[in-house]
């Protein structure tokens, strides 16, 4: 009995070990092949999640299917939470969708692994010219064989803005920044200090009851601190990665990289102008406290305006301010993208669908649905996303500051981010380690991670 159970245990374990390993390189088809004259079928994996955005996506797919009986597209709903795990298994198993919605940081790995189709020669001229070159740079990657290729069509971009409580902003008497004349980081910290005071905090959801409590100037939601920190670090020229003459990429944390880290840390622990309760929260989590006047400003991606507009209690006034600038106003840009699987049987039809899906008119719909910035120049001029309402003017203006985030092309960035940078930055913002520890761990542990990808 005992020996048997030990044997059974061994078998169970062995199986588990065997299951943990996947084979490489599935080659089978991703969509069913069709006889001539029959409609080509494409699967489109979409990651849209906001209600308006899902509706816009489905609408465009429906319109396409009606207009093109020969190429029928099936909308497949995915989720940002696990899309990359899902794609790795689907690619390996040969069941990946033909048209894949993702974001540019994820593409470099898939491109180098040979799972995505190089679109260089396939892009229609109209689509190519409608999207400016800096956006194309966010999807141009090493193909794993020494060359470069374009592995997706960039369509929505996120920039950082500050969402502010208008009442508290006006009461503090600080200069209101504009896209042409944004705050410097010094002014921003100064403003945050001015808005930090004991003040009436709304206690009931109806907004009638208040009691006096500590109010803060700003709230940093740093549950996922890496992308936010790295994108803002560009304000002072902080790139975090450098590529040496030998072609090896290493992590660097010098004075430029430390600027934004130190300034955010100062707001939290020196000025005490940042709400400590928000620190461990995800981007949208501090909103209830924002509506209660607990803090006045929330630095966030432009898309968060959607939730603010939707959830704000009656009579709550808010404005969108441009992000502060350091030595430059530059921010790192990543884009949402549409790519075609290398194993897709109908790449040309897929390209046609993408070209339609991302034309100026449709991009404007998608941008409005997701409250993000379109890459299409035609879409950016659409009056529905340039008006003053809900801060669209400030959001759209911030697009000109977007440059390619330097980490986009770093092989192994995803592992560096989740294994090294996320815990290190979380501990730093929680005041558990010093900035010198941050620099040391990001560089030493980080280089070890990057090493694996450069063998």
């Amino acid at each position, binding site marked *: 009995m005992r020996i048997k159970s030990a044997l059974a245990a*061994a078998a169970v374990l062995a199986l588990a070990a065997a299951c943990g390993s996947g084979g490489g*390189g599935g080659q089978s088809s991703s969509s069913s092949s069709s006889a001539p004259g029959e409609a080509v079928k494409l699967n489109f994996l979409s990651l849209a999640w906001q209600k308006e955005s899902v509706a816009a996506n489905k609408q465009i797919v429906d319109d396409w299917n009606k207009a093109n009986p020969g190429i029928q597209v099936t909308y497949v709903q995915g989720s940002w939470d696990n899309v990359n*795990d899902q794609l790795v298994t689907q690619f390996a198993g040969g069941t990946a969708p033909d048209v894949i919605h993702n974001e540019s940081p994820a593409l470099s790995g898939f491109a180098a692994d040979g799972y995505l189709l190089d679109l260089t020669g396939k892009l229609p001229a109209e689509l190519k010219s409608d999207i400016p070159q800096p956006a194309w740079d966010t999807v141009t990657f090493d193909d794993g064989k020494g060359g470069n290729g374009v592995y997706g069509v960039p369509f929505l971009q996120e920039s950082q803005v500050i969402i502010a409580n208008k009442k508290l902003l006006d009461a503090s008497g600080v200069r209101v920044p504009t896209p042409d004349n944004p705050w410097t980081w010094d002014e921003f910290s100064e403003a945050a200090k001015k808005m930090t005071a004991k003040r009436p905090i709304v206690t009931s959801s109806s907004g009638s009851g208040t009691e006096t409590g500590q109010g803060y100037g700003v709230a940093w939601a740093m549950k996922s601190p890496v992308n936010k920190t790295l994108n803002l670090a560009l304000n002072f020229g902080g790139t975090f990665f450098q590529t040496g003459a030998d072609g090896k990429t290493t992590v660097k944390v010098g004075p430029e990289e430390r600027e934004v880290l130190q300034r955010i840390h100062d707001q939290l622990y020196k000025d005490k102008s940042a709400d400590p309760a928000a620190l461990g929260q995800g981007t949208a989590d501090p909103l209830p406290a924002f509506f209660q006047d607990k803090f006045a400003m929330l630095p966030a991606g432009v898309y968060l305006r959607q939730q603010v507009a939707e959830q704000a209690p009656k009579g709550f006034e808010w404005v969108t301010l441009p992000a502060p600038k350091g030595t430059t106003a530059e921010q790192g840009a990543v884009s949402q993208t549409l790519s075609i699987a290398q194993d897709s049987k109908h790449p040309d039809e897929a390209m046609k669908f993408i070209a339609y899906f991302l034309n100026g008119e449709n991009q404007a719909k998608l941008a409005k649905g997701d409250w993000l910035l379109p890459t299409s120049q035609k879409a950016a001029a659409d009056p529905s996303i340039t008006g003053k309402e809900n801060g669209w003017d400030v959001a759209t203006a911030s697009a000109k500051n977007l440059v390619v985030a330097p980490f986009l092309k770093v092989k192994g960035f995803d592992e560096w981010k989740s294994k090294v940078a996320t815990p290190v930055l979380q501990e730093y913002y929680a005041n558990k380690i010093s900035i010198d520890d941050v620099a040391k761990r990001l560089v030493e542990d980080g280089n070890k991670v990057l090493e694996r990808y450069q063998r």
Partner: protein
Amino acid sequence: MTATATRPSPPSPRRGTRRRRRAGARRTREMWLLMLPALVPVALFSVGPLLYGIGLAFTDARNTRNHETSFVGLQNLTDLLSDGDFWSSFRIGMIWAFSVTALQFAAALGLALLLNQDLRFRGVARVLAVVPWAMPPVVIGLMWRLVYHPDAGILNSVLGTHVNWLADFSLALPAIIVVGVWTGMPQTTVVLLAGLQGVPKELYEAVEVDGASPWRRFWHITLPQLRPVIVAITSLDFVWNINQFGLVYVLTQGGPGGQTRLPMLFAYEEAFRYRFAGYASMLGVAMAIVVLAVLGLYLWRQMRETR
């Protein structure tokens, strides 16, 4: 096998050895023939993948389309042994497996003893005790995520606290251990209950005549009688727990900052997130060896003591 066993013994010893040898050979052949239908699926679905996995562990296989896999010998093992993340994951895995198994056993034994008493509604209580068994780990994970939810969770509203249980660096591991114990209790309870019902009544009657206290009865009759069952179920629990994946994946995905990254989650991340299939296979092999070693030691000691 039973058919051949009833064959009458050969009359002459000299002729018999040859005949017996021939009969033995035929018996072996028959045995293999009869076992074949059972062996094929075993070879196809367990031994094959297992050998493939072990083979992968000695290569630099990656889950990519354009990678030439080559043999790298023990490179993966040396990398593994010098990987700080592996050791922290290993430590977490051991804390998890030992504490969940021990707590599961203690709680399940208590519950089994209670359910073995002549209580009212015993049938209903027994059914309720196995309910968690009927739930898939993903559902359990989702349910407990709601329990631990920082704003809407039952736990915070009962305690009147505002703790983000699953995101706190020091609370996340204890929080998932509680869920692990809850999940594994039913099968442990059922097995122990079955064991309790197999303890002969005469033994209790005998010690009662001698005037033994309930504690002494438990210590000197129940526990020794249950011993084989306890050894079996704790070893199985240990294996199940150290290989736990779905539950923790749903609850924390190994976060915050890797504080709940069990070895199997680590292997999953290596294989499917960072796509180092060879490295992940070596991790699987290493964990299998560790578990076999721990179990071997435990079973060997238990058997020696019984003897």
